C-alpha cells in the first residue's frame, strides 16, 4: 500500500489526449493475435508421457503450426479480448427481434451439474433417467405454454427449427400424396424463412403487408392455390405488431389444404397471454436463446425446439422421449416409432445444455413469472414508443406495439444523418444499437426491443439519451453522427475492403528479405 504518496488531485486536462507509446488507452489494451505471440513449442497444459509409441505408419502427422500460450498468457489474452465486447451485462442491449434479456447465472450453474454436463449421449439409457426426465419435463412445459400436443426438441437453433417444421409439413403433404411447390412468406419475415423454404425446394412467394404493418387475410387468399404448401408467418411480426387477423389467415390457409408455420422468434411477447395452438398454428419453433434466456454467447449456441399440431406430430424427427409402460425411454429408430418420423435433424438428442438452462429459467419464473415477463417486455417497449414518438417517426401510426417498437428514418429526412449513423452514435452513449435496416419493409428501420430486464430508471436514462441524440440530429449536428463511434475500441470499420480482399485467416508474413529476393 502506498501510504507515503500524496493523494491525487485533478489536474488541468490537456486540450487533446496524447498518443501513447503502446497504443493502449489505460483499461483499453490493444491485443495481438495468438499467432503473433504464441509459439508452437509452448503449452499451457501439462500432460503425462504417453506409455506407447504411435502405431500409425505413414499416416503420422508432420508439423501443424499451432501456437500455444502458457496459462497466464492465455487468460490475459482472452480477458483483454472480452473487454472489447458489449454484452447484456454491460448495458442496455435493445437489439430488436433478438431478445437480449438477462441471463440468470443459476441456469449456468445448473447446466454444469455433472449429472447434466458430464453425461454422454450414447451411454446406456439406464444410466441417464434424470436426463430423460428433464427432456420430458421441458416438453411438457413447452406444450402447455404453446397449447400444442407435441414438440420436437432436437433442432439446434431457430433456423434449424424452421427447417424441421417445414420438413414436417413437407412430409405430411407427401403422406397425403401431394407435392405442392409454393411457400408464402410475408415481406417482413426474417431472412431465414425464405432461405429455409428454398432449401426444401419450395418457390417463395412474398405476401405484402397492408398499411398498418400486418398481413391481410384477403391478400393471403389471393396468393393461396392448390400449389401452396404453407405460409410462414411471424407473430408477433417483425414490426412488433400482433397479427390481429391471425385466425382469418389460419382459416384461409387450412381451407386451401396448406399448413400454418409460425416463426416463434417473438414468442416472448405472448407467453401466458395467448397460446399459438389456439390460433391455428401447425408448427412453430421456439428460440430457447430468446424467449427462455439461454445466453446468446456471441452468436450461439442456440436451441430451436418445434411444437407440432396433431396433424404434424407423427412426422416428428428422431430421436424423442416417450413415456410408456416401461417408463421414460428414448425412441431412436424408425422401426421403434409410432408415427412416420421425417428422419434425423442432427447427431444425438439436441442441445441438452440449453434444455437445462431453459428449464431452470422456466422453473424460476413459473407460470406467473413468465406471464409477468411478457407483460413487462410489452410495457417497456410501449414506454419507449410513447416517450420517443414525438421525435422519431412510427411507420404504422401511434398504436400499441408488442415487445418491440419499430421506428423508420422518415424523421431524419434532410438531416444528413442515416439510421446507421444514429446507431453508431448510440455506441458512444454507452448503448448497444437497436436492430437497424430490418425489417426490410420499412425505410431505414430501427427496431428497439428493451426486454423485461430493464428497470424504469435504466429506460428513462436510455430514452433521455435517445432524445438528446434525436434533437442533435434534427439540429444538424452531423459530426456527432457521421464519425461515430468515437469512443469504442474501434472506429468504423472498412467492410468493403474486407469483402473485396478477403483475409479470412492469419498467414505467416513473408520476411522482407525473402520477399525481396
Amino acid at each position, binding site marked *: 500500500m502506498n501510504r507515503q504518496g500524496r493523494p491525487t488531485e485533478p489536474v488541468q486536462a490537456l486540450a487533446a489526449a496524447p498518443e501513447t507509446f503502446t497504443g493502449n488507452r489505460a483499461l483499453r489494451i490493444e491485443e495481438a493475435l495468438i499467432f503473433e505471440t504464441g509459439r508452437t513449442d509452448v503449452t499451457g497444459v501439462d500432460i503425462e508421457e504417453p506409455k506407447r509409441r504411435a502405431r500409425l505408419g505413414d499416416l503420422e502427422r508432420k508439423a501443424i503450426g499451432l501456437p500455444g500460450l502458457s496459462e497466464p498468457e492465455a487468460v490475459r489474452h482472452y480477458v483483454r479480448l472480452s473487454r472489447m465486447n458489449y454484452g447484456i451485462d454491460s448495458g442496455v442491449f435493445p437489439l430488436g427481434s433478438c431478445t437480449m434479456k438477462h441471463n440468470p447465472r443459476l441456469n449456468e450453474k445448473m447446466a454444469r451439474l455433472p449429472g447434466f454436463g458430464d453425461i454422454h449421449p450414447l*451411454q446406456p439409457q439406464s444410466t441417464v433417467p434424470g436426463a430423460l426426465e428433464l427432456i420430458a419435463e421441458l416438453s411438457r412445459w413447452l406444450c402447455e405454454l404453446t397449447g400444442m400436443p407435441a414438440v420436437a426438441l432436437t433442432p439446434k437453433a431457430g433456423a434449424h427449427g424452421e427447417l424441421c417444421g417445414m420438413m414436417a409439413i413437407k412430409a405430411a403433404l407427401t403422406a397425403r400424396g401431394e407435392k405442392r411447390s409454393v411457400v408464402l412468406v410475408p415481406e417482413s419475415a426474417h431472412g431465414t424463412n425464405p432461405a429455409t423454404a*428454398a432449401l426444401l425446394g419450395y418457390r417463395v412467394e412474398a405476401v405484402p403487408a397492408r398499411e398498418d404493418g400486418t398481413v391481410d387475410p384477403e391478400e393471403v387468399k389471393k396468393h393461396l392455390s392448390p400449389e401452396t404448401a404453407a405460409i410462414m408467418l411471424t407473430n408477433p411480426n417483425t414490426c412488433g405488431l400482433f397479427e390481429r387477423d391471425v385466425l382469418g389467415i389460419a382459416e384461409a390457409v387450412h381451407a386451401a389444404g396448406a399448413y400454418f408455420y409460425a416463426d416463434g422468434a417473438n414468442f416472448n411477447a405472448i407467453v401466458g397471454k395467448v397460446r399459438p395452438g389456439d390460433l391455428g398454428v401447425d408448427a412453430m419453433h421456439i428460440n430457447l436463446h430468446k424467449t427462455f434466456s439461454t445466453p446468446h454467447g456471441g452468436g450461439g449456441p442456440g436451441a430451436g425446439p418445434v411444437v407440432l399440431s396433431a396433424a404434424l406430430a407423427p412426422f416428428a424427427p428422431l430421436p424423442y422421449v416417450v413415456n410408456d409402460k416401461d417408463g421414460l425411454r428414448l425412441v431412436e429408430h424408425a422401426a421403434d416409432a409410432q408415427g412416420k418420423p421425417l428422419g434425423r435433424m442432427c447427431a444425438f438428442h439436441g442441445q441438452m445444455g440449453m434444455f437445462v438452462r431453459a428449464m431452470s429459467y422456466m422453473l424460476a419464473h413459473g407460470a406467473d413469472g413468465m406471464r409477468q415477463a411478457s407483460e413487462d417486455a410489452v410495457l417497456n417497449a410501449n414506454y419507449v414508443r410513447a416517450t420517443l414518438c414525438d421525435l422519431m417517426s412510427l411507420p404504422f401510426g401511434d398504436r400499441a406495439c408488442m415487445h418491440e417498437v419499430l421506428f423508420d428514418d422518415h424523421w431524419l429526412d434532410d438531416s444528413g444523418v442515416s439510421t446507421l449513423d444514429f446507431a453508431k452514435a448510440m455506441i458512444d452513449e454507452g448503448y448497444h444499437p437497436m436492430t437497424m435496416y430490418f425489417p426490410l419493409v420499412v425505410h431505414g428501420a430501427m427496431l428497439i426491443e428493451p426486454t423485461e430486464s430493464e428497470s424504469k430508471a435504466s429506460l428513462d436514462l436510455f430514452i433521455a439519451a435517445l432524445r438528446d441524440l434525436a434533437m442533435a440530429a434534427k439540429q444538424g449536428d452531423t459530426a456527432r453522427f457521421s464519425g461515430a463511434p468515437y469512443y469504442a475500441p474501434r472506429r468504423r470499420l472498412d467492410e468493403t475492403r474486407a469483402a473485396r480482399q478477403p483475409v479470412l485467416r492469419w498467414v505467416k508474413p513473408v520476411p522482407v528479405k525473402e520477399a525481396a529476393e
Partner: protein
Amino acid sequence: MRYLPLTPEDRSQMLARIGVADIDALFADIPVEKRLKALPDLPLTKSEIEVERTLGRMAGKNVAAGSAPFFVGCGAYKHHVPASVDHLIQRSEFLTSYTPYQPEIAQGTLHYLFEFQTQVALLTGMEVANASMYDGSTATAEAVLMAHRVTRRKKAVLAGNLHPHYRETVETVSGMSDHAVVALPPAPHGAEDILGAIDKETSCVVLQTPDVYGHVHDLRPIAEKAHAAGALLIAVVTEVVSLGLVTPPGEMGADIVVGEGQSIGNGLNFGGPYAGLFASRMKYVRQMPGRLVGETVDAEGKRGFVLTLSTREQHIRREKATSNICTNSGLCTLAFSIHLTLLGEAGLRRLAQVNHANALILAEMLGAVPGVDVLNSTFFNEFTIRVRRDAAEVVEKLAARGILGGVPASRLDPSRGELSDLIIVAATEANTDEDRAAYANALREVLA
C-alpha cells in the same frame, strides 16, 4: 420475481405515461376469445434454492462420465478441459453478447473467431474455415449441399463407416431436397469399396476418418478417383484430437473438411451444444455456408475484424442464400479456441499421443479377454471389439458393474444383424490404469 426489475409503482406510472388503463390494453390486438383467462397449468415461481433442489434431484439420477471408468465415444469424447476454459467463456462480455453485427463493440468476439478460423484451417490442413456450424453432423449435411452447388450435381456417396447419425442427418436433408444419396453398407473391419461407387454423376464422396469403428484412412486414393470423376471429397472428423497425430484430410486431397469440435474445450452435455467445424479450399469460399470473419482496418487505420462475404447469407440473400443458418456455436467455438491455444501444437500432439497410447494399451488388454477380438489394425483412440454375444446386453451388464464400456454398434444401426456383437470402445487421457484394469476384469466376468 427476482429477474424482473419493474415495481408495481413503475408499472402504473408507465401505463399512465403510455396512456392506457391497464396492461391488457396493450394486448388488444390478440383476438379476445383466444386470450388466456387463467395462468397456464404449471407451477408458480420458485426461489433459487428450490430450482436447485428440483434440477439437482434430476441430475443426481444420472451416472456422470467422471464418476466411472468411462470408454464411450462415437462422436463425443470425454476429455479433460482445463479449468481456465470454462472460467473464461463465462466472462459476461463473451457469454451475454450477440452475433457481432456492430463490430466496433464486438472486437472481442470477432478477434477470437478470426483466430478460431485460422486454428481450424491449420488443424484440418485446409485454406479457409468458417466461424462454425451447429455440430459435426449438420456441418456434414451442409458440406454435401455445398458440394452440390460447386459441382452442379446432386448425388452424394456416403462411406459405410460414416457415423450413422451423420448419415441419417444427410439423408434427411437430401431426401427433403430431392437429392440422391448412395449410402454404402457398414464395414466394421475397415475395408470397403468406395472407389467403385464413384461415377460421373457423383457430386461428392463423404468419408469419415477415424471412422465410426475407429479405422484411420488414407484419403489419397479416394481423392484422386473423386477428382478424376469431377467430384469433391468431403472428409469428416468426429474426434478432432486425432488431428494432433494423424495426417489431416487437407494434406490428403480433401476439398471440404467438416468436424465435431466437442473434443476440444467442450463437455459431453448429453450430445449438445457442440461446435461444428467447416473448412474448405479458398476457391470455394463463396459457396460456403455460415459466418466468416475477415480482417480489415478502421477509420484510424487500426487493424480490426468484421463479419464478411455476407452476401452468401440468409439475412441478405434470403431465398438465394447458401444456407439458412443464422445462429451458430459461438461460445462453444470460444471454448474450443481457448483450449487449443492452451494446448498449442506441443500440447495437442502430446494429448493425441496419450490418447492413442491409452487406446493401444486398452486394445491389448481387451483383446486378451477370452471371447474378444479387436477388429482394427490401425486406429487412433477408438476401436471395435467383437464379443460374440449381444453387445447391448454386454454393455448393460458392464454398466451394472459400474463400467461405461462403449457403444454397442446396434444402438446406432439396429437393422443390421451382423453388427449385433460389436462394441465401439474409446480411450482418452481421462482413463487411468485402474480404469482399464477394471474394464478388462468386468468384461472377463460378463463374458465368462
